[in-house]
């Protein structure tokens, strides 16, 4: 249990809580990279998924591409872009986007496609145009599934943003990388704990988002999705 005492001592040290390498600063950097990566991914994946889901065109291509992207080794993508573009935020963001797009894209696509044909027929029968059906019916019905994909993506992004430290950028990964370099187990452990904490907070955030964004009529069904 010595390690627990060390951990307490590490967190209790006031030096950890101030300055550009303090916990608040590192946490802020980590949140910033994760948020940026996630927003870019959502900006790419959600419109694309809505489009392929609504038209039914390119569904197979989307699924294949998403599968392919999921197989990409993140550090390979990161290192390759670092070689091409140099150290900085761009390679980290590219790696995170490559990681986060597939789950959001697949879930958006399947969410739109999973809308009951009866509902769609009813919407068209009411005289809605294609884009109205998409935005007023298919998107709201798909929201629970989209959020689920985004949550998976977010947890992966938060855990993976640690690699930013490997290419000289900040974030909570610094504790893990520097701890490894200094053979400081406590520091590594503390860094990992902070990442886990952030991931748990992310999950809670998505629980809140679901409460906010899912239409009231869909909540009973959304509860089944969890």
């Amino acid at each position: 249990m010595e390690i627990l005492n060390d951990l307490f001592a590490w967190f209790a040290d006031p030096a950890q809580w101030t300055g550009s390498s303090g916990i608040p600063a590192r946490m802020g950097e980590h949140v910033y990279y994760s948020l940026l990566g996630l927003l870019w991914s959502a900006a790419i994946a959600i419109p694309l998924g809505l489009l392929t889901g609504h038209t039914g065109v390119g569904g197979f291509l989307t699924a294949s591409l998403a599968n392919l992207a999921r197989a990409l080794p993140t550090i390979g993508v990161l290192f390759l872009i670092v070689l091409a573009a140099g150290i900085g935020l761009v390679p980290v963001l590219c790696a995170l986007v490559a990681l986060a797009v597939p789950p959001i894209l697949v879930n958006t696509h399947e969410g739109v496609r999973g809308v009951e044909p009866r509902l769609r027929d009813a919407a068209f029968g009411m005289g809605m145009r294609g884009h109205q059906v998409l935005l007023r019916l298919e998107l709201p019905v798909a929201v629970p599934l989209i959020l689920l994909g985004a949550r998976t993506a977010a947890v992966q992004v938060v855990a993976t943003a640690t690699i930013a430290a490997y290419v000289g950028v900040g974030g909570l990964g610094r504790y893990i990388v520097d701890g490894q370099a200094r053979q400081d187990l406590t520091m590594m452990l503390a860094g990992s704990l902070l990442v886990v904490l952030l991931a748990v907070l992310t999950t809670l955030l998505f629980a809140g988002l679901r409460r906010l964004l899912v239409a009231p009529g869909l909540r009973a069904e959304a509860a089944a999705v969890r």
Partner: protein
Amino acid sequence: MIFDAWDWIVRVTDWGVANWSHPGEPDRGILPRLLQHMRLSYLSILLGLAVALPMGLACARWKRLYPPVLTGVNVLYAVPSIALFFLMLPYTGFSDWTAIVPLALYTLVILLPNVVDGLRQVPDHVRQAAVAMGFGQLRRLVQVEMPVAVPVIIAGLRVASVATISMVSVASLVGLGGLGQLILSDGFRRQFDAPIVVGIVLTVVLALVTDAALVILQRLLTPWSRRDGGGPSRGDRPAVVPSGAVAAAGGPESANTVGASSTGGEAVETGPGNTRGKERTWRS
């Protein structure tokens, strides 16, 4: 521009061919790294499945066990892999276990829900028929419930294997990692792009080949599900067919949806419940 790209492809391919393996030096070259990559990822997946099956059985039987176990597995999944590899080092050193144990733990987040859902979606009338035929608990589990759950479990295995194969590379930071070694030590540390590209391409190819092998395995294990031929195409979906049915008949198209292929088949009979299968997409 196009010629540049072509030159680059030729250069990378040349490097790959020239360094495939070095006779006399079994540790150098691409092939040994590929073999290590396969060993690490397959052992992790098998270990994960070996843990997920009994755990899933327990969770399906004692329902109260499931939520806390699932939460625990999810929290574990949030631990960054780099950290977990480093934290394993004091206990397992530079043996394969340093990579295998964390990777196996990560597969649980996909495998466990699929095992539980697979067992839970065995229709009640099937279970009752087995009881009525005089099947004991164990025989019912092995001969009826497990086979019915196979498609869902394999759907989970497919997602887990692709994820694991791409994640093995991270273990290169602790000196393991198969093709990740190629990416890190031959490529990044020497500022040389060819090994990185070869590493990425081979990782993706390995993932796709493994995925295809699992599809074939599922066909062999569940010969009764092979009845459908082409199935309706995605574009002109007749309104009466629930969307789940398309996923079931669509073969490779349903590849991405965890559990969709099996529950989609169920949806054909149950009608309004057709969204159930879709909801399993990417749950974690």
